C-alpha cells in the first residue's frame, strides 16, 4: 500500500520503493550522458554487450547515418543514435565554417526513472528497485508477461525472442525462446562489486559519466552553463529535473536538439501517475456494470 500512497502523493524526490532498504540503502547513483562530447565510437554499446553477454541484435544496414542497431531493445541496452544536420554546432557557423554541418551522437540507455512505470506495472515483482535507486529485472522471476514493455514511456524494455540460453522451460509447453524482458541493469553486479558500469568504464571521452546522482546534476548544470556561454546550439538537459513526469531520470542527458530528434519523448510521464484516477474510474464502471446488469435483469421480471 506504500506504493499506492506514494502514487497518490506524487512525491518528486526519492525513487519509489528505495526507502525499503533502510540501513542497506546506498547513495543513489546514475548516469549523466553528455552528448556534446560523444564521439559515437559505440564502445559503450559493445562493452555493455560484452559484460552482460547479450546476444547479437541482427545485422541490418539501415542507412540511418552510422546507426545500424537502431533502438534500445532486449539485445541492445546502450544504443548510440546518429543524426546528421545542416546546422552549425556553435553559434552561426563556427562549428564548421565551410559546410555548417553537425553530427549529433547520443548514447541512449534506460533512464532508471525515479517513478518507473515498468517497475510499477510488473505483476511479478521481477522488476525491482535496487539499493542504489536503480531499476533491474530479476531474470529468474520474470515470466515474460510483457506488461512492462508498453508501460515504459521510453520504449526501453523488450522481450527477447531467442533460443533460451539458460533455464529452459519444460518442453511440453512448447516454448523454446528466451521469452523474458531485458534491459540495462545499470550493471547491478558491477555496482555490488564496487565497480563502475561497463559502458561508463569504456567511454573514452567521459560522455557517459557515472556517479552519485546529485553530484551529476550539479555537474550537468555547470556544463549547460558552459555550453550556453560558448553559444552552442540547442543545448539542453533532459531528465535532470526531479519535477518532471517521471520524477527525474536516474540516467539523464545533455542534448543538442529536442529530445524527439534523438527518438526520446518530449514530455514523458509515468503512466501510473494516473493510476489512482484509473482505479476509481474502473470501480465506477464496475459498479455501473453490476447495477446495470442487475437492473436489466429485474426489469425483465417485472415486465
Amino acid at each position, binding site marked *: 500500500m506504500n506504493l499506492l500512497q506514494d502514487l497518490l502523493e506524487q512525491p518528486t524526490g526519492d525513487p519509489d520503493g528505495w526507502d525499503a532498504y533502510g540501513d542497506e540503502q546506498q547513495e543513489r547513483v546514475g548516469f549523466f550522458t553528455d552528448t556534446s*562530447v560523444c*564521439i*559515437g*565510437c*559505440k*564502445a559503450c*554499446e*559493445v562493452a555493455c*554487450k*560484452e559484460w552482460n553477454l547479450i*546476444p*547479437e*541484435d*541482427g*545485422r*541490418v*544496414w539501415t*542507412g540511418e*547515418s*552510422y546507426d*545500424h*542497431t537502431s533502438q534500445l531493445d532486449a539485445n541492445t541496452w546502450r544504443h548510440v543514435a546518429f543524426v*546528421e544536420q*545542416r546546422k552549425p*554546432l*556553435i553559434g552561426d557557423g*563556427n*562549428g*564548421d*565554417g*565551410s*559546410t555548417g*554541418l*553537425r*553530427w549529433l*551522437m547520443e548514447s541512449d540507455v534506460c533512464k532508471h526513472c525515479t517513478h518507473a512505470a515498468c517497475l510499477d506495472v510488473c505483476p511479478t515483482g521481477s522488476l525491482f528497485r535496487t539499493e542504489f535507486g536503480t531499476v533491474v529485472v530479476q531474470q529468474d522471476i520474470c515470466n515474460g508477461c510483457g506488461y512492462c514493455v508498453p508501460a515504459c514511456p521510453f520504449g526501453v524494455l523488450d522481450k527477447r525472442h531467442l533460443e533460451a540460453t539458460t533455464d529452459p522451460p519444460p518442453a511440453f509447453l512448447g516454448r523454446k525462446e528466451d521469452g523474458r524482458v531485458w534491459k540495462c541493469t545499470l550493471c547491478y553486479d558491477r555496482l555490488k562489486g564496487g565497480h563502475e558500469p561497463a559502458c561508463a568504464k569504456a567511454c*573514452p*571521452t*567521459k560522455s557517459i559519466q557515472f556517479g552519485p546522482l546529485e553530484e551529476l546534476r550539479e555537474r550537468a548544470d555547470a556544463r549547460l552553463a558552459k555550453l550556453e556561454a560558448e553559444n552552442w546550439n540547442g543545448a539542453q538537459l533532459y531528465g535532470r529535473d526531479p519535477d518532471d513526469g517521471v520524477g527525474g531520470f536516474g540516467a539523464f542527458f545533455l542534448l543538442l536538439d529536442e529530445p524527439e530528434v534523438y527518438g526520446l519523448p518530449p514530455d514523458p510521464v509515468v503512466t501510473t501517475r494516473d493510476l489512482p484516477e484509473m482505479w476509481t474510474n474502473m470501480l465506477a464502471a464496475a459498479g455501473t456494470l453490476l447495477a446495470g446488469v442487475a437492473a436489466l435483469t429485474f426489469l425483465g421480471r417485472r415486465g
Partner: protein
Amino acid sequence: MPSLGTSFGRGGATTFQQDLQNADCIVIMGSNMAENHPVGFQWVMEARERGAKVIHVDPRFTRTSAMATKHVGIRAGSDIAFLGGIANYILEHDLYFREYVEKYTNAPVIIDERFVDTEDADGLFSGWDPEAGRYDIESWRYEGMEVHGAAGQRGEGFEPSGEQSGHGAAGGGLHHGEPPAEDPELEHPRCVFQILKRHFRRYTPEFVAETCACSVEDFVEVCETLAANSGRERTSAFCYAVGWTQHTTGVQTIRSAAIVQQLLGNIGRPGGGIMALRGHASIQGSTDIPTLFNILPGYLPMPHTLSYHKLKNFIDSNTSPTGWWGEFKSYWVSLMKAYFGEHATEENDWLFEELPRIDSDNSAYFTVQQMLAGNVKGYIIAGENPAVGHANGKAHRLGLAKLDWLVVRDVVEIESASFWYDGPEVESGELKPEEIPTEIFFMPAAAHTEKDGSFTNTQRLLQWHWQAVEPKEDCRSELWFYFHLGRLIKQRLEDSEEERDKLIKALRWEYPTHSGIREPDAEAVLQEINGWEIESGKFLTGYPELKDDGSTVCGCWIYCGCFKDGINQTARKKPHWEQDSYVAPEWAWAWPANRRIIYNRASADPDGKPWSERKRYVWWDESDGSWTGLDVPDFKEDKEPHYVPPDDAEAEEAIAGGHPFIMQADGRAWLYVPQGLEDGPLPTHYEPHESPFDNPLYAQRANPRRQQNKDLAEDPYNPVADEPGSDVYPYVVTTYRLTEHHTAGGMTRSVPYLAELQPAMFCEVHPDLAREVGLEHGGWATIYTSRSAIEARVMVTDRVRPLQMKDGRTVHQVGLPYHWGKRGLITGDSANDLAHMALDPNVHIQEVKAFTCGIRPGRRPRGPELPKFVAELREQARSRLEASAVEPPTPGRTSRTPSASGGRGEQDPRVESEEARKTSS
C-alpha cells in the same frame, strides 16, 4: 617514418597523446582520430574543454570533424598545397618563432650552389636522372660538405632512404657538429630559410583555395589560429595518420608539417609536436624491430649486395662522425652478439660476411609483381590480409595463385587463405580452384589474449600484456611458431657442412619454454632485446652503455633500458593519478630511455630556461649542473646549454649545448633535408598518380619519383586530368576506416558485436552526385576503375563535399570504407579491388587515399560479366585516348607546353607513357 626521421632524427611520433591536453591548438589532418584512435582522442577532447582550438582538415566531415571547433573540407591528395600554404603564410607574415628557427633548425645553413629548386625547373629538383628515373642528390647537400653517407650506404653507391633513413639520417661530414657555411641572419640567398621562402612563395591563400577546393577564409583562419597559438607562451600540435601517408607524396606531406612545426617552434615542447597516429597495436614496434626487408632492429640498415665485401666500409659509411649515430658500431656489434652469441667475434667480423643481403626493392608490392611473373615460390602471410587490405586486391590474389606454397597464419580463415575457392576471381571464372598449383597451409594463430608479450604503441610506448587464457587446440603464438620452426631447422642442419648454413648454425636459439605446448618465455626475449653485459650478466640500463668490442649484447639498441635493473619496465601499470605528473613515467616504458616527448631540450631556450612558465617541461638546473624537468631530458644530462664542442669532438660529444636534435649530425631540426629522401629535399605539390587535375604549379603533374608498374597488365591506370578517356573515371575516390571495424576486417567481420554495428559495405556520396548519376540513398551503387568494379550500399550525405574547382568544374568525391571482403558474418566487396599499386618512393606505400573512379546506380555485374564490364569501360577510355593522336612525352622538357593531345608531359621514363597505358589495359 623517414619524414620525421630525416626532419628530427627519429622515426617516431615526437610526443605522446596524453600531452595533447596541453595544446592550445590541435590540427588533425590526414587522420580521423576520433574514429580510429578513440581512446587517445580523449586528450583532444580534454584540450578542447580547456579552450584549445581543434581543427580538422579532411575531405569528409567525420566523427572527428563533429568534435572539432573547425572543420575544413579539402580535396583528397592536396595536403602539401595546404601545408605549404601555411608555411608560406607564416613566412610572409613573419609569424615564425624567430629564435627557435634560428637556433634549433637548419634555417641558417647555406646549401650547395648547384641546387636547383622545383620552382625553377618546372617541378623537378636538380639531379634528376631521366634514364634511371631517380635523383642524384649530390647537389642537395650543405655547401662545403664532403659527401658522406650516414645511417646508410651511400658511400657504396646505395643511398639510405625510406625506412633506412627513418631513424636518424645524419648529415655526415660535419666538423664538430656544425655545418661549414651558415648565415645566422638568415639572409643569404642560398640559406635554407631563403630557399624555403622562395620555394613556397606561390602557395598563396588563393592558390591553396583553388588547389584544395576550400575557401580562402577557412584557410587563412587555420593559419591565423595556428600562429596565434604558437610561440613562447603557446603551443600547437599536429596529429596525422594514413590520410597523409597513403599517397605517392606521403612522406613529403609529413615533411610539410615538420616544416610548419619547426617554423612555429612547436617541436620538443609540451602541447606541441607531431603526433604520428599509427595503426595496428604494435605497428610502431614492427618498424622498431622490423618486419621490413631493408632494416634490422633499431633502424640499422640491412646490408646491400653492393656493400657485400667488408664490415669496415659498412660500419664507416653508416657511422656519422657526429651525433648519436656516431656509436653505430656499438649498436651493430651488440645486435650481432644477440643473434650469434659467442659465434660472432671480432676476428670473423661479427659474421658480417655471412649475413644475407638485399639486392633491390623487396617490399610487398614488388614481391607481388614477382609472384605474378612466376618468380616467387613460397610465401608466409602472418598477421596480414593482403587479399583485402592491399591495394589492387585482384593482383594480389592472382599472384598468390601462382605460388608453389603459401602459409597463412591468422586467427580466422581470412580471404588471403580462402581466395582459391571463394575469391571474386573464382566467381568470375578467372581462377579455377582445380588449376591453382598453390599448396596452402592455414596455421591458426593465438590471439593477443592467449599469449604474453609487448605492444609498442603509437607513441613509442612499450606496454606488456599477459596471457589471459591458453590458446585453443592448434592455435599457437608467433613466438612459438618461429621459435620451434627455427629449432627444427637448426636441428636438420646440425650436421650440414654447407657454407650457406653457417649462419643458421651460429644462431643463438635458446629460450626457456613453459606449459604443455612449450611456449617460449616472452620475457626472456624482452631481456635479450634490452641486452646485458656479457661478463657480469648485468642488464644494461640504456644504449650509452653499449660497446663495440663485443662485450655487450643488445637485440635492439633503441629499446635498451626496457628491462633495466632486471625489471620488466614495460609491465609497469601505475596509473597517472598515482604519479607526480601527467607525464606518468612509471606507466610502461617508452623508447628512447623512457622519454615521452623527444627532443625535449627544445622546450627550453638556448640558455636552458623554459621558453615560458606556462610551457615549462625540461630545463637546465644551474645549481645541479644538470638537465631536469617533468620528463627524462633528451640530452646528455650534464651538458651545459652553452657547451661548444672541441674541434676533434666525435659522435655525441660533437653536438653543441644549444642543439636539441641530438640524433642529427648537426643537432638541429631539418627544414631542408639534404639527404635521406628519394623525392626531394623539400616537399612540393604534385597531383596524385590518378587525379582529374593538372598540376597548377608545374608541367610535372605527379611525383616524378613515384613507383609505378607500367608494364604490369594487372595494374592498369585510369586516364587522368584532361586526358581523353579520363571522363570514364571522373570522380575522386578516397578510402578509409570506420570505428566499428579494423582494417581488412578479419578481426571484426567475424565478431557479432562489431558486425552488427556496420553490417554492410557502403559508399558515401554528396546529394549532388547522387542526383547527377541517379543514386538513391539506401540503394546500390557500382563503383569502377580500370582495375575492377565493386558494389556498395549508397549513403547520400552532405558530409562528403563536392569540389568547386577554379575552372568552374564541380568534381565529386566518393568515400569508401575498406573493411569488407568475402568472409565473416557480414560480407561485401573490397574497396581495394579498385585501387592501383603506384607507390610512394620512400616507403613503398600505396596511394589509396586519392585515385579516380566512375560510379553508377545498381548492383555490379556477376560472374564472368564483371571482368567484361570492367574491360569494356577500360576499352572505352582507351579508345578515346587513342582517338586523340598522342605524342610521346618529351623527356627533360622544362617548360610547360599545354598539349592539345592531353599528354601530361611526364619526364620520368618510368612514368607510364600513353602507349604503355594502352597496352596495359
